[in-house]
């Protein structure tokens, strides 16, 4: 199985953003998706860092794609999305609007925020030129298995969410701004203070979700630590690792060692918690009763 680094979902300073990809140039991953997924207002702050990062990564032999925004509504966002198609880099669509702008027959990838739940949708995307699809994180194993098989017949690689806080929802409303008593248009970039999202707890103190501007993620970090063999056996082509602010390069290395059979699931999950500074893990969407469940040992 290959490793794909998904687009950074959070708002980081340009230097930190650039530094991550500098470090990832030597990380044991095959593919990276760059660009702004969550909020168009963030892009100007690090836009100039994207091209250098892209060049560094391509020079290092990595496959690089550019993501579309997850939700396109404003005129400016439509323009951004249209321009993506002209960038000369393969696009990962995370809102179908991007597909509307791609030239007929262009090769593209489909990200986890596009609703691909069944073979019919997969087939339709394949006829449009999709070569790689990262499935929505909420899909259970049975669906993944069916879609991988269908994908193989269509010459389409299927990837699953392997690691990272799970993107659960996208909204027109900015929750970071709301938390600070502001509206989205005057958000003052409140999300910048939370490089891994802001923890949202229940009123009785149970960690639950994570707030990231217009996006809502899980509190727990999904990890396929215990599902690697299963996923490999059914033919999943790649695991997607989603960037976090602490210990991400080490995280990529750990997954590679797990894929190589050098460490087991227990060791991987222990190490993931260690290098991240204590994240909670989950893998329930794939095999559990619900997304928040974890099949490994309790923390």
């Amino acid at each position: 199985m290959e490793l794909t680094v998904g687009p950074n979902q959070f708002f980081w300073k340009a230097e930190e953003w650039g530094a991550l990809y500098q470090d990832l140039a030597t990380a044991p991953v095959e593919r990276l998706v760059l660009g702004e997924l969550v909020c168009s207002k963030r892009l100007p702050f690090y836009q100039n860092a994207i091209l250098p990062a892209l060049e560094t990564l391509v020079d290092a032999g990595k496959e690089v794609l550019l993501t579309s925004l997850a939700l396109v509504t404003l005129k400016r966002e439509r323009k951004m999305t249209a321009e993506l198609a002209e960038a000369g880099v393969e696009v990962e669509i995370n809102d179908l609007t991007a597909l509307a702008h791609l030239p007929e027959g262009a090769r593209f990838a489909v990200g986890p925020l596009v609703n691909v739940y069944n073979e019919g949708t997969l087939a339709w995307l394949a006829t449009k030129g999709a070569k790689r699809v990262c499935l929505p994180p909420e899909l259970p194993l049975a669906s993944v298995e069916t879609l991988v098989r269908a994908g193989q017949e269509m010459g389409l690689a299927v990837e699953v969410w392997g690691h990272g806080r799970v993107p659960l929802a996208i909204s027109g409303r900015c929750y970071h701004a709301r938390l600070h008593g502001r509206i989205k248009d005057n958000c003052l970039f409140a999300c910048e203070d939370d490089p891994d999202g802001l923890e949202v707890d229940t009123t009785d103190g149970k960690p639950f979700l994570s707030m990231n501007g217009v996006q809502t993620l899980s509190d727990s970090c999904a990890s396929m630590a215990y599902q690697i063999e299963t996923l490999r056996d059914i033919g999943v082509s790649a695991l997607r690792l989603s960037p976090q602010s602490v210990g991400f390069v080490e995280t990529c290395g750990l997954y590679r060692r797990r894929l190589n059979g050098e460490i087991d699931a227990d060791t991987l999950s222990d190490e993931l918690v260690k290098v991240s500074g204590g994240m909670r893990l989950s893998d329930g969407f794939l095999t559990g009763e619900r997304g928040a469940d974890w099949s490994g040992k309790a923390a």
Partner: protein
Amino acid sequence: MVMEIVCPAGTPAALRAAVKAGAHTIYCGFADETNARNFPGLNFSRAEMAEGIAFAHARGAKVLVAINTYPRAGDESLWHAAVADAETAGADAVILADLGLLAYAAGNHPNLRRHLSVQAAAANADIINFYGAEFGVKRVVLPRVLSVPEIAAINKETEIETEVFVFGGLCVMAEGRCSLSSYATGLSPNMNGVCSPASHVDYVEDAGALSAKLGGYTIHAVGADEPAPYPTLCKGCFTAGEKTAHLFEDPVSLNAEHLIPQLAKAGVTALKIEGRQRSRSYVAQVVKNFRAAVEAVDQGRALPEGMLARLSEGQAVTTGAYKKTWR
């Protein structure tokens, strides 16, 4: 032209009540996972659907069949059958969200009119026109993330009819793009047609206070005399940083009746009422109000006084994203 009132019906009785109360159009679904209100005791058998459609047609009303969940891999035939059965039953259109299902319906049931469900969250003119070109979609139900001026702008750029929600439950997230429910319960709108399902709700009443949990997560607790909203995840009370509040949305429901004249000016074709899970009495009440309102707007009269808030969740209402400051 009078704006079309599109009204929910969770049961045949609600459908009849809606037709009698003056709904131009009713939307409903089959009693299975193919529709996004797959709630206990709700929805239509095949026979009930055919009877309901005949009842509506005899009185000049239309019926739309919502098949707006995302078909499960390996089980698409259930959704394909729903499309075929809707056509057989005489449906005026089907409301679909899934790309694969749209392609299937366009290919196999070309004469069955296709509407794009709000669950597809098509939020700009480019993607709306794309759905029109690819699948022959004639109408799109707009996601609840757009302001009135944005809706007007969309209508200027597309020939496809637009339908917008004016009353009832309010999704805070872009519809069809939310897995909060399955994260907490394993069941989601996209896969199972339920959000924050009743099967995973626990109400605990203690000394007059009522605590509502979903999948073991406390969504909110209210005092003895406070309104008790259903524990819908995104309307819960949570803590982030120093703040404990309804961080995503207050327990409010949408009421845009006062915006009807603006929505008419914005080129909207149809006004949609949420609530297939509500009673026949609710449905009739809301329809009467909105029918009177669109007639008034059409004749250039002032809107009748609203009396809908009592029917609303938590008895508080919002105009949601239609006003830009909501964001």
